[in-house]
């Protein structure tokens, strides 16, 4: 009979462990928000309650121990635990209410899309500059002159001018930056700069210059080649 309560508790515990610790570690998955975990646990609990109350016997076996525990009849050494629960529950409700109603002292949360979609006219553009050693070398020279103060001589986003900027300049050596992008995407970002970002990219926070005002397109394409070569990355392709 004791199994009638222990089993649901074990099921709930296992479910919680799976949602909290196992699912996030599955490749391609991510940590579940606590609200979603709570929803899944409530669904699990509902299923358990339905299952355990389908017959009069199982219903008594399921609710009986809880009723006895709450009323305190014949629970022997569990009495202190019962008092603890009866004190803990109102305190928990009060604590949750305080958290829900107390004014927040934290700044607004910001969610920035790091690689927002480019305008349609930039999709699929092909670098018109031949990928020759001379052009790559020239691109690295332009990079050193115009980009390295922020993005770093080592293409790692740690240039001498980077420290005050939030968001920080991109680290091209990181495989999650230019290696995930096509050359046409970089062309758009370099040409239009921070002020050319859509609203989800938070254009008001980006220090990236609008290089189309200062550099010809050919130089920008060469800079892109220099960036990929210097950061030891390759542009993303559709193949």
């Amino acid at each position, binding site marked *: 009979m004791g199994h009638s309560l222990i089993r649901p508790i074990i099921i709930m515990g296992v479910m919680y462990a799976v949602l909290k610790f196992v699912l996030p570690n599955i490749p391609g998955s991510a940590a579940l928000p606590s609200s979603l975990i709570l929803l899944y646990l409530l669904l699990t609990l509902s299923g358990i309650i339905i299952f355990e109350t389908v017959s009069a016997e199982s219903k008594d076996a399921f609710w009986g121990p809880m009723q006895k525990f709450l009323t305190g009849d014949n629970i022997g050494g569990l009495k202190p635990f019962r008092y603890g629960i009866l004190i803990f529950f109102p305190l928990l*409700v009060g604590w949750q209410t305080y958290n829900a109603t107390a004014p927040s002292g934290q700044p607004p949360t910001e969610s920035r899309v790091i690689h927002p979609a480019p305008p349609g006219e930039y999709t699929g553009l092909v670098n018109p500059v031949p990928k020759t050693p001379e052009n790559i070398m020239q691109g690295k020279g332009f990079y050193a002159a115009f980009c390295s103060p922020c993005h770093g001589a080592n293409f790692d986003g740690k240039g001498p001018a980077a420290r005050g900027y939030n968001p920080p300049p991109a680290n091209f050596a990181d495989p999650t930056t230019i290696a995930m992008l096509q050359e046409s995407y970089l062309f758009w970002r370099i040409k239009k700069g921070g002020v050319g970002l*859509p609203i989800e990219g938070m254009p008001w926070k980006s220090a990236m210059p609008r290089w189309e005002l200062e550099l010809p397109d050919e130089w920008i394409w060469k800079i892109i080649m220099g960036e990929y070569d210097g950061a030891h990355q390759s542009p993303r392709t559709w193949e």
Partner: protein
Amino acid sequence: MSPGSPWGNEASMNPVKLTVQWSVYVKWVLIATLIMGGGTDGLAQESVAVRASLVSGALPVDDPNAAAWNGAAPAVFPMSPQVHWPDRIQEVTVQDLTVRALHDGTQVAFLLEYNDPTEDPDDAAAIEFMVGDKKAHFAHGQPMLLVDGGPVNIWFWKHKDNKGVDMWAKGFGTLRPHSHQDVKAKGEYANGKWRVVFSRSLVTEHPDEDMQVTPGRFVNIAFAVWDGRKDATGQLIEKGSQKAVSSWWYFRAEPPPDYSGYLYAGVAAVLALGFQFVLIRKLKEGQSA
């Protein structure tokens, strides 16, 4: 209750079984606490926001060295050379800026502190705010191509004038002083460090041009500093858009203490206690029936 319930027979009182049940219930309570707690919210990061403490009495608007500033929490912001606008610079003197703020419910005062090896007449500092609800680019409210941006309100101080200038901009080249001047500023240099106080009333009569302070509400804030040193030819090295700048951060004038959360929590706890009482009473009535 079924007659075979372990809670109602002697076997359930076996110490070994009780130990197992206790451990299970303790785990269950811990899990419930974790769930109800909503996970781990990130702790507040310092230097994301300047917080103006609410004080009684006069603000030290004319005294950068006043003891009252010791009661204001410092926020430290890294600075970078301005690179966004073409007339850029690649190296600047000031690397970090420490900012404190106080308010008294009608006025707000900011204290900017930074290291500068030399005292020069052209040493200068500025605070920038977004105005209204529209987002503005941190570089003078530079127009954005896909987003309709707003203007910025700039409070400027220069050593040789030692006063505040209240300005407005919506992009480089549009900077102009307000026809109304609401900002006061005063700087003092000592031991290789500038301390500059800016102050203004929380609200002004020009909400379209000035940042308005509502206690409890965050507004965006950024900073700029010019080291007024000159090169060998006598030319200013940092001038105009060639300056040290910060990104957008946040500013909030702290609201008066609000204890309503404790009241709501108390009411909720009493209601939960009452619910327990009624529930147990009903259960007991059911058992005795």
